[in-house]
């Protein structure tokens, strides 16, 4: 379980197969790569290439059929639920479908990420309003998710993911519901967070974003890594 080298995330010969009506669907096949601390990595590929599965494995939401996934020195899928919960508190996940808690207000959704790590109320209030200001939703604090547009929901999801200053941000197509203006704003925000030393894994199929970032790009095709380049470009 313990691994000696110093990295943030590592995939080692990972295969993930889903069974749908007894038909095996290979989502990831024997993939290996490492992500260093403070790195910004884009995972690109067509729809169904395995991007979301890769992020789910990192979050401990799915288990690999073969191979190992490491978060620092911890092999994620050998950890107890309690320890996985502790690791998840060090991760900020931006889901493609936002995954906001519908019965909580925007303020409460964002505050929840700090409440689970037991930050005191004064700090929560201060930080939540700060982040709401950053994502331009201060006036919507007391609204519920169903009262927001797709772009606004995505910004709330980002705010929730970064509020507790996680070590890693996993962003699963965070701009898929957004117009070009909001897309640019979100990417700027992610870059700003990255500058503070946060490791970022961005799964996307947005060519323009990837090419404008000029950062490391891992290209997936049918569950296999076909390209892994420093300062890479979106080529499919």
């Amino acid at each position, binding site marked *: 379980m313990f691994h000696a080298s110093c990295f943030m995330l590592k995939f080692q010969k990972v295969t993930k197969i889903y069974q749908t009506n007894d038909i095996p669907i290979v989502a990831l096949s024997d993939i290996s790569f490492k992500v260093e601390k403070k790195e910004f990595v884009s995972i690109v590929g067509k729809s169904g290439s395995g991007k979301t599965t890769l992020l789910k494995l990192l*979050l*401990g*939401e799915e288990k690999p059929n073969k191979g190992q996934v490491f978060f620092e020195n911890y092999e994620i899928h050998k950890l*107890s*639920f*309690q320890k*996985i*919960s*502790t*690791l*998840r*508190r060090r*991760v900020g*996940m931006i*889901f493609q479908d936002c*995954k*906001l*808690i*519908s*019965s*909580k207000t925007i303020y*409460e959704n964002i505050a*929840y*990420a700090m*409440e*689970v*790590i*037991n930050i*005191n109320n004064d700090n929560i209030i201060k930080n939540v309003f700060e982040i709401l200001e950053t994502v331009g939703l201060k006036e919507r604090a007391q609204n519920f998710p169903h009262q927001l547009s797709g772009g606004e929901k995505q910004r709330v999801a980002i705010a*929730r993911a970064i509020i507790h200053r996680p070590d890693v941000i996993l962003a699963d197509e965070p701009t898929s519901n957004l117009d070009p203006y909001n897309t640019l704003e979100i990417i700027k925000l992610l870059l700003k967070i990255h500058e503070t030393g946060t490791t970022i894994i961005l799964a996307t199929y947005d060519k323009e974003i990837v090419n404008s970032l000029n950062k490391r790009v891992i290209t997936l095709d049918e569950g296999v890594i076909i390209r892994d380049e420093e300062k890479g470009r979106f080529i499919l």
Partner: protein
Amino acid sequence: MKKKEDLYYKFMFTSLKRIIKFGWNNFYRNKGLSFSSTFIMTIAILLIVSLLFFREASQFFISYIQEKVDISVSFNLNIDEEKIFEVKNELLKMEEIRNIEYSSQEEELENFKQKHQDDEILMRSLEEAQLFNPFPLPAVLNIKAWSADQYEQIVESLEDEKYRNIIYYIDYHDRRLIIERVFSITKWINQIFIILSSIFILIAILITFNTIKLTILNQKEELIIQRLVGASNWFISGPFLIQGIISGFFASLISFLISLGFVYLLEFQIESLFFEFNIFSYFLNQAFIIFLVQVIIGITLGIISSIIAIRKYLKA
């Protein structure tokens, strides 16, 4: 060390406060679900409480009937009262005996006259018998046992050789059938109570569990999100427990008011059915205990059902 402990307690207290707040918010914001689970729990509590009332009424009925059952031992006419008291004291040593009442020859004569005063033939016969003996009826010991099967044993000891010249007649063999029937009815009522209790409690648990399961299923998506954000099992399940407790408390409050109205409206019907058992005054005398029992049932049902229903979502 002390500082570490203080921090731990502060941490726990803050978590608990948040869990209570989340639980209340969930209850308040999901009004439809909260209403249906409270409604179902009210029915479940009413089922269990109606059992308690049934038990109380049937116990009253049983003791009322048992009070009417006894055997009479008549003594020879020439026996001294002292001898009869000796027999009585001897009998009182038996575990099987609940109560013995002595009725002297004078009292028996008086009772007989009162009972048959309208029967001329019987009264004339009595007068004729009194010509030979002013008290022609024997003194009697009326004996009550704790249960029907104990009478046989009591009668056996009375049929002992030492009492042969004292005792004139024991009416057990005439009344045996009635005694056994009365006691079998009471036994039957107790068995029905046990069967009904089991069924009602099972129904109560099942319907409550299923309702809370549906409530939680409705919030499954939120539960999964909480897990992915890194919430601990305690932080996820705590608010559902609080929701269950709140539903249980409101359900017990509502069922208390419903049962109060019910016993008030049916006071006289129940009184005539269960031989003067006044359910309304029983309810008023025991109001606090009944409310406490309902609250305990409601909260326990809420907690148990929530724990069972949420368990599967907490597995890694």
